[in-house]
């Protein structure tokens, strides 16, 4: 038995001197009590109200913020298992065992059994009077007295609240809001702490540690599973979780993929977003907290003030979305260097794979898949290349890469249809080269997108940051084609595709000429 608990023998009995019958109480006048002195006193004047107020001078939850130790000194019925009762539903079931009733009223179950409904209603009325400032009616007051006094009803209310709330959420809120939780939540927390025979502060600390360990364990299982499935993506982790994973040193498990870079990546996107929206982050409180953490983390890591950090992201965004002549020149030079790394033999192989009629596009795509996976070191990423052979519902889309599903799709049939329409007055050979050009262009374009995505995950240099931010704040063509085309990721990919497509066509024509 935990310290502070007492046995059922010590339960305060119902008021034996109270001669009011239940029937009389039912018929009693419902007029509210006007005299404020008659309203039940609360021991919780120190408890924070629902108004969260200013936290600036708040250090940490302290004993004086909590309920005093004047709480119930008797044992109550065991709480029902969590989750059995939906929020708001009475924790007091219609049917209780004699033993349970005995625990409530100290052995006078025969007197009270038919009146459990009244007890429930009395607790509800008491709750409204404590938290919502509603006055108790004369009937309620009489019922409170009949049930043994305010102390007993108060304890019933604590129990009710303890069953209504999720302990993990209350504890988490208690910590993340630095002790500022609603009165109802505080009553619930007080109840749990008393049951454990601990102060609220100690109990909350202990339980938070427990939940953190549980969280780490859950992350552990999740990341192991995700890794086994080949779809591990720490983007799904919050900063808190990433922190936990990083701090959690478990033998035999490596969290390399979830390390510093990933944490920075998420921090970058959030800090950028915060600056873009002038600090007005829309989203859940968890998201806002993440942004706050991200900014603080980056300020520390980069030795910058928050305003300097904002300036940095504004400048980076200019390079991404509003490129100047230097940015464009840099893109050209970067893509030229990438293309130089592709051996001519690989390009010739792709051209060869088209076959004698130059129409085996699938074979060319397969060859290029190998080429680009090798060039960009994407062999282990698990990219699935799909050649779509339908030309329906493409609406101007030649291909795409989905970083989530790792699907890279080339709409080969649609490209061919478009080229045949656009060049219907041209000869077949010319149309064929256009189709080859566009398919090769599209696959190079999409593979560069895949590379950008992976690069952003693994590098925290300026390029990596640009890819992360651009990927996070991507502009679709539907928004504005110019804006879509100008952003860094597309600027590079269009450049890459355009150059590469021409190279494959040149090789194809050269070989075709040689065959003649």
């Amino acid at each position, binding site marked *: 038995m935990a310290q502070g608990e007492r046995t059922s023998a010590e339960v305060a009995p119902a008021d034996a001197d109270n001669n009011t019958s239940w029937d009389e109480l039912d018929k009693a006048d419902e007029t509210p009590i006007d005299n404020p002195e008659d309203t039940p006193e609360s021991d919780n004047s120190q408890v924070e109200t629902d108004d969260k107020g200013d936290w600036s001078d708040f250090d940490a939850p302290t004993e004086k913020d909590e309920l005093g130790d004047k709480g119930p000194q008797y044992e109550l019925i065991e709480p029902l298992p969590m989750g059995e009762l939906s929020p708001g539903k009475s924790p007091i079931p219609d049917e209780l065992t004699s033993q349970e009733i005995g625990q409530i009223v100290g052995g006078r179950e025969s007197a009270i059994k038919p009146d459990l409904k009244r007890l429930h209603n009395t607790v509800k009325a008491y709750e409204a009077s404590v938290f919502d400032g509603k006055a108790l009616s004369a009937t309620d007051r009489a019922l409170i007295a009949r049930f043994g006094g305010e102390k007993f009803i108060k304890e019933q209310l604590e129990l009710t609240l303890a069953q209504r709330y999720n302990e993990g959420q209350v504890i988490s809120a208690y910590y993340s809001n630095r002790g500022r939780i609603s009165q109802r939540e505080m009553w619930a927390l007080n109840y749990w702490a008393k049951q454990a025979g601990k102060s609220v502060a100690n109990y909350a600390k202990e339980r938070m540690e427990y939940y953190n360990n549980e969280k780490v364990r859950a992350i552990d299982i999740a990341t192991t599973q995700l890794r086994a499935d080949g779809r591990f993506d720490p983007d799904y982790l919050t900063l808190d979780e990433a922190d936990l994973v990083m701090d959690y040193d478990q033998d035999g498990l490596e969290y390399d993929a979830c390390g510093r870079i990933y944490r920075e990546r998420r921090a970058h996107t959030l800090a950028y977003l915060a600056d873009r929206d002038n600090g007005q982050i829309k989203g859940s409180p968890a998201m806002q907290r993440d942004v706050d953490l991200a900014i603080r983390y980056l300020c520390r890591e980069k030795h910058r003030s928050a305003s300097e950090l904002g300036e940095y992201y504004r400048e980076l965004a200019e390079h991404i979305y509003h490129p100047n002549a230097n940015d464009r020149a840099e893109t050209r030079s970067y893509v030229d260097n990438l293309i130089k790394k592709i051996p001519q033999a690989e390009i010739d192989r792709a051209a060869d794979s088209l076959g004698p009629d130059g129409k085996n596009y699938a074979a060319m795509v397969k060859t290029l898949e190998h080429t680009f996976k090798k060039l960009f070191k994407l062999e282990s990423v698990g990219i699935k290349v799909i050649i779509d052979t339908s030309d329906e519902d493409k609406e101007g889309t030649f291909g795409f890469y989905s970083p989530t599903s790792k699907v890279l799709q080339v709409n080969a049939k649609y490209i061919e249809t478009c080229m045949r329409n*656009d060049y219907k007055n041209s000869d077949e050979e010319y149309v064929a080269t256009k189709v080859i050009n566009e398919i090769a262009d599209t696959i190079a374009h999409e593979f560069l997108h895949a590379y950008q995505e992976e690069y952003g995950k693994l590098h925290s240099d300026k390029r990596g940051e640009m890819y992360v931010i651009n990927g996070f704040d991507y502009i679709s063509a539907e928004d504005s084609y110019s804006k879509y085309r100008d952003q860094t990721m597309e600027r590079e990919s269009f450049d890459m595709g355009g150059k590469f497509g021409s190279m494959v066509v040149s090789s194809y024509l050269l070989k075709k000429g040689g065959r003649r």
Partner: protein
Amino acid sequence: MSEEIVKCLTDELKYSAGDAEYYAKQLAEYDDIANEFLTWRKNQNYDYSPALEIDGWTAKKIHERNRNIDAVTVFMTMYWLRVDPDYVKSELETGFAVK
């Protein structure tokens, strides 16, 4: 002229101030392109004459390649045809394909 374009981009085409300034600055670099943009603004179509032609492309022809593109894209394409035609070669060939 740049200010008038900025106003059009922000008020009518709902561009952000930063985007509007960026594109207006480029469109206003050449008076003939800027004037054409303002003519489009007035008419809300590309059927005016005489029409500016760069490398055989008029605003109307560009728009016909893909009727979903906005006016900024049409006139920025004209801008690029003058400044660096290679930059928009692929778009004109594919009808502003999305990849």
